[in-house]
């Protein structure tokens, strides 16, 4: 086999190699420094977070055996050997799962309606006044930065225990998250239809209704479905603080060591989240599919 690779004269090669090494050395130095800083941060963080590798190694067996325990019925048999016994409380749990989905549905829809009302005031191209835009943006930022479960903690005290606090917490969080996404969609629209409508003498509301909404409706719907999916996960833990749904039952089962109940409830939550994911994914595919064809 003949090789056609030409080899440069030594002098030229040395020059090229030199330049290459110089270029790489600087990059390597930066890389090494960045890595060193990162590891220093990790070590500080490990001390701060009370990481005890020894405890971890000693207790990791617990983690594995925890899954072994939650897969065992009280009688000592494996859970799947007696489905009826494993899911003994399925009626109650299914009702609570229904409540969980309902909490996230009502919370998402109420949040979406509010976000819909607010986002046109927050988007750069449709906002009537800069000060209003600034105020609404800060409000939305606040709503989405404070975790929904913190709102739930406060609302449980204000509105009493129960799903109402969960719905309101999810609603507030959704207003912040959806409002931002909505206004980003609005900022990307084609402004020509808006000008067209405005040139006929239409009011601000008519401009929004006839020029903006038709362009953004599909995008809004898609983000709302995505939010619903996220909120179902969020609602599944609302019960931890007493704000309704399946979480209450789960936290009781975990704390009182009802092992097989833990696995049964977890499995039901996973399957529900899974089904909701598939359902909203399908719905979003249809929405965007329609857009792409048009």
């Amino acid at each position, binding site marked *: 086999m003949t090789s056609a690779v030409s080899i440069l004269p030594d002098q030229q090669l040395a020059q090229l190699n030199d330049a290459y090494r110089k270029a790489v050395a600087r990059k390597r130095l930066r890389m090494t420094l960045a890595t060193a800083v990162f590891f220093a*941060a*990790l070590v*500080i*963080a*490990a*001390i*701060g*977070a*009370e*990481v*005890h590798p020894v*405890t*971890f190694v000693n*207790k*990791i067996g*617990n*983690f594995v055996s*925890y899954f072994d325990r939650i897969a065992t019925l009280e009688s000592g048999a494996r859970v799947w050997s007696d489905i009826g016994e494993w899911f003994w409380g399925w009626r109650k749990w299914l009702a609570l799962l229904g*409540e969980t989905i*309902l*909490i996230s*549905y*009502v919370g998402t*829809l*109420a949040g979406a309606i509010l976000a819909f009302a607010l986002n046109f005031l927050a988007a750069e191209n449709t906002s009537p006044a800069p000060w209003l835009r600034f105020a609404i943006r800060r409000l939305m930022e*606040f709503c989405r*930065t*404070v*975790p929904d*479960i*913190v709102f739930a*903690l*406060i*609302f449980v*005290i*204000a*509105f*009493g225990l*129960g*799903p*109402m606090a969960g*719905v309101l917490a999810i609603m507030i969080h959704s207003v912040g998250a959806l409002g931002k996404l909505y206004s980003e969609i609005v900022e990307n629209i084609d402004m020509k239809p808006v000008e067209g409508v405005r040139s006929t003498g239409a009011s601000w509301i008519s401009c929004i209704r006839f020029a903006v909404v038709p362009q953004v409706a599909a995008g809004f719907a898609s983000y709302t479905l995505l939010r619903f999916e996220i909120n179902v*996960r*969020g609602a*599944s*833990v609302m019960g*931890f*603080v007493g704000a*309704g749904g399946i979480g209450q039952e*789960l*936290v009781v089962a*975990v704390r009182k060591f009802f092992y097989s109940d833990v696995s049964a409830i*977890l499995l039901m*939550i*996973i399957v529900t*989240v*899974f089904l909701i*994911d598939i359902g909203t994914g399908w719905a979003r595919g249809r929405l965007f599919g329609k857009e792409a064809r048009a």
Partner: protein
Amino acid sequence: MTRLPVPDSGDLRGRYPEVFDRPVSSRLALPAMLLGAFGIFAFGLVELEFSPARMLAGLNQLGWITMMMIPPDPGSSLPAYLVALGETLSIALLGTTLAAVLALPISLLAAKNIVPSNIFRFPVRRFLDSIRGVDTLIWALVWINVVGLGPFAGVLAIAVSDFGAFGKLFSEAIEGADRKQVEGIRASGGNALHEIRFGLMPQVLPVIAGQVLYFIESNTRSATIIGIVGAGGIGLQLAEQIRVLEWQKVSFLILMILVAVAAIDWISGKLRFAIIGKRAVA
């Protein structure tokens, strides 16, 4: 002023039947969907025990709470709160790093261009999906049972729940990598290890680094709440102060969280910019 000639509407209707005479089914679809959506909404309100009286009483109460929150005041526990905040940031950083390190090998198994066989890829993907289906708070509860109360449980909870997310995101990044560079390395005589090191990694690493940074950012938020179930950090303080109705301390803690999250946002934005470069951000 001259009136514009009004076109004959009958003529227009005849010319554009698809605009004026849409079939009843497509005309009714949207109102029916909206009606259905609001029907469920109304059912939900009744089912979840919403009532105007409760709403009013609650809002009244909430007004009182807000009044009592002003001005935010940490009292004498500011040092304790700062330590807790540091703990929260540590949990986020460690948990995310641990998740990224664990997820990298698994993500190779879930990538289509590395493991072409569906039989192997499918279970890995479902496994990652089911990990993601469980909320971080639930993982925190499980880990508390294993390593006891404290921030270490929080680190592990964040690591596990991000492991699912990273596995999926990394495998997508690997699938999106350009084959040409890998082929180029092979053509110049590199072996399989060289292909991954010089062909794949330079393409994938910046994407992965960007995602890890983004997750550190979002985990700062998650880390603030896992304290609610006892897994350390500022959430523990927050939940305690809410339970004993120390509203001034609560508002101070919330402000601290907001400032910390904003600071982390800013830093990681800068870092991502430096790693990915201007082009990818724009």
